[in-house]
């Protein structure tokens, strides 16, 4: 980097201009991408009449309506719903991260036909709309076995429906990103597959696991259909189900709904900011050198 020659220096000013144009472009796009979210945010502080009549106005005629947040908080029983969402999401994600990476590892490294078929099945599910197996699932696990209305069964289902995607992401990453030479070295040193996986491979998976975690958390945290079918008791409601109480056929309470939405997504934004550095940290490159 220090060895900058003159040609590069000339290119430097040109680069600077290009970079500035690009930055400006990125910023414009950024604003466009943010518009819907900003709309939710500003309208969450307004009364319904103001939302309908002046949706673009920044502040309600009668000042910011912080009361929306208070009422939404109480009406949706926020703590209970938040706890349920957290419980379900955290356990599902934990299972997905550990079991799916194990699954992906073995499917990449073993060249059996069974592995190929399993992998094919797992990724085939990604093209199945959930509605296709919805009634059969309910008929078997609800009608026959009476296992619904339990957060744990929802966790297991989330795991089952998410593992295809999680495995798919890890599979590709291991195949192209993790040099087999590291493991071979470990095997030569007498390590077993468990040791090799947890001590050598798993740490290298951090970037993809962080990506996985973000994407899966997002899906699970916002998921409505499956939880609403499995958890039909009010005390088991997750946040998206609780938000539905503000949506009526004729009388949606928009102010409360948007306030609820903001409260619902805030944890995800925090998680995203936290995990971001792992995703783009480029940890693999260091490992390859070693």
């Amino acid at each position, binding site marked *: 980097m220090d060895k900058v020659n003159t040609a590069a220096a000339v290119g430097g000013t040109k680069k600077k201009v290009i970079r500035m144009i690009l930055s400006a472009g990125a910023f414009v796009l950024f604003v466009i991408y943010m518009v819907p979210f900003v709309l939710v945010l500003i309208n969450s502080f307004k009364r*319904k*009449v103001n939302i*309908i*009549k002046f949706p673009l106005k920044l502040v309600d005629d009668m000042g910011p309506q912080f009361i929306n947040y208070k009422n939404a908080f109480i009406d949706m029983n926020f703590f*209970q719903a938040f*706890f349920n969402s957290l*419980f379900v999401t955290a*356990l599902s994600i*934990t299972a997905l991260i550990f079991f799916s990476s194990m699954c992906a590892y073995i499917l990449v490294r073993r060249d059996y036909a069974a592995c190929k078929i399993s992998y094919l099945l797992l990724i085939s599910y990604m093209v199945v709309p959930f509605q296709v197996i*919805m*009634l059969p699932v*309910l*008929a078997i*696990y*609800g*009608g*026959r076995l*009476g296992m*619904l*209305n*339990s*957060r*744990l069964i929802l966790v297991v289902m989330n795991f089952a429906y998410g593992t295809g995607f999680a495995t798919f992401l890890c599979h590709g990453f291991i195949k192209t990103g993790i040099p087999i030479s590291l493991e071979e070295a470990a095997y030569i040193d*007498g*390590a*077993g597959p*468990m*040791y090799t996986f*947890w001590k050598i491979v798993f740490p290298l998976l951090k970037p993809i696991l962080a990506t996985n975690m973000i994407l899966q958390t997002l899906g699970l945290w916002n998921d409505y259909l499956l939880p609403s*079918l499995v958890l*039909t*008791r*009010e*005390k*088991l409601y997750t946040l998206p189900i609780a938000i*539905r*109480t503000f*949506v*009526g*056929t*004729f*009388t949606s*309470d928009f102010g409360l709904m948007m306030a609820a939405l903001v409260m619902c997504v805030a944890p995800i934004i925090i998680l995203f900011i936290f995990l971001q550095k792992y995703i783009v940290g480029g940890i693999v490159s260091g490992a390859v050198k070693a």
Partner: protein
Amino acid sequence: MKRKVLAMLLTAAMAASLMACGGGGDTSAESTEQTAGSEADTSSEETDSKEADESEQAEAPAADDGGSDYGGITLTFLNSKPEITDAVKKVTSAWGEAHGVTFEVTETSNPNDTLMANYQSGDAPILAVVDDANVLDFAAEHLLPLDGETWEGYTDMGKYVDGKLYGFPLTVESHCIVVNKAVVEENIGREFAAGDYKSIEAFEALLKEMRENGMETPVAVLPDIWSMVGHDFYPFYAYQDGTGEGAFALVDAVKGGKDIFEDELFYNHADFMSRVVAEYNINKADPLNADHDMTVLALAEGEVGFLLNGTWTWPELESMGASKSDDYTIMAYPNGSASAGKVMAAPTKYIVVDNSNATEEQQAAAKEFLNYLVMDEAGQKALIDDLGIVCAFTNNPNIPSDPINKALMQYISDGNTVTYLPLAFPSDYRDTITPAVQKLMTGEGDIRALADVLNDYWKNNDPNGR
């Protein structure tokens, strides 16, 4: 050696995670208790806050019916009329307290899909507020016949399927034109009487007059498919002879080869909608993509005088600033039939009781609750005041407090209603005719095209509810 240690560690880890799961199970049990506790707290608070009159009401039924106590059973209650969910919670918990019943009220905007899913999971609600078509679809397999209940004697609007009573009529509603009377009168400078505008010509003249007086577009038409297609294009069935029979007769005639285009009522109504209403519609520029709320707000704020909708719109108007003392009324879709001027009115939501998962005790409690709504003074009051509806029972002395439902009550007691049931459409009817209706309203299609779709539809389908 290393391998063994690791295997042991892993087993330990797995055991730990299993225990963690078990722990999770405990927490859920704990929180269940907590919530149950807090639910009880809130409801008792509610009762407290409503003070004397509420507690009197809660005790009254206990005195009347011998105070059956169900010893803490739970009744699940699915509500498909979201605007009354809070009121339903209030009414059920008041009754439940006095009878040892805990209600769990959930809501859905699509009772058909929810019930299908719930029945598959063996987790169907004991009581459910559903639509007409749902009663037909689920009765034979899953619902409890309610013949012989005390309330049956006080209504002729119950929903019968194959001769058995399955649906408790919860609400009577009207597809009609909602009128902001004060605004109309201010514009025309004289009193507005709905009876003066029974015919299409008279109503058209009124709209023209209002336009000349400065209100460019005095009518609001909702863009929603359920309203525009489902409701606004219903009157030509209902007004055939003012009964269900007439509606069936029209369908039979079309089945037998009659071109519906030749039907005077159909043609005139379609012409009224596409020529008159479309012209004076505040959403004229883009009738299909107007904003629902802005459209209702236009009536509440007096930008228009008329809204094609129904009596259920009151809570919505109220949330937009209308008050119960305001001068609103309703009028019929104008037409040239013998029943012109009468409004369409019929029960639109029914309560049904489950017969697949419910225990006998739950069914008994559910039945008693329904009787309470009809026979008990407190129940009668709850039905009208809390749920804010027009009720289908002749013995209920209470009068709705909002002007729209009050107006409907007046039409009913004057005998000025036509029923728009029992004719019920098969579930794909609306989807099938939607494109033709939408094109008619935007001017891209014509009455001939809609007639063709209807002719074709009724040749291949049978109406429900006969």
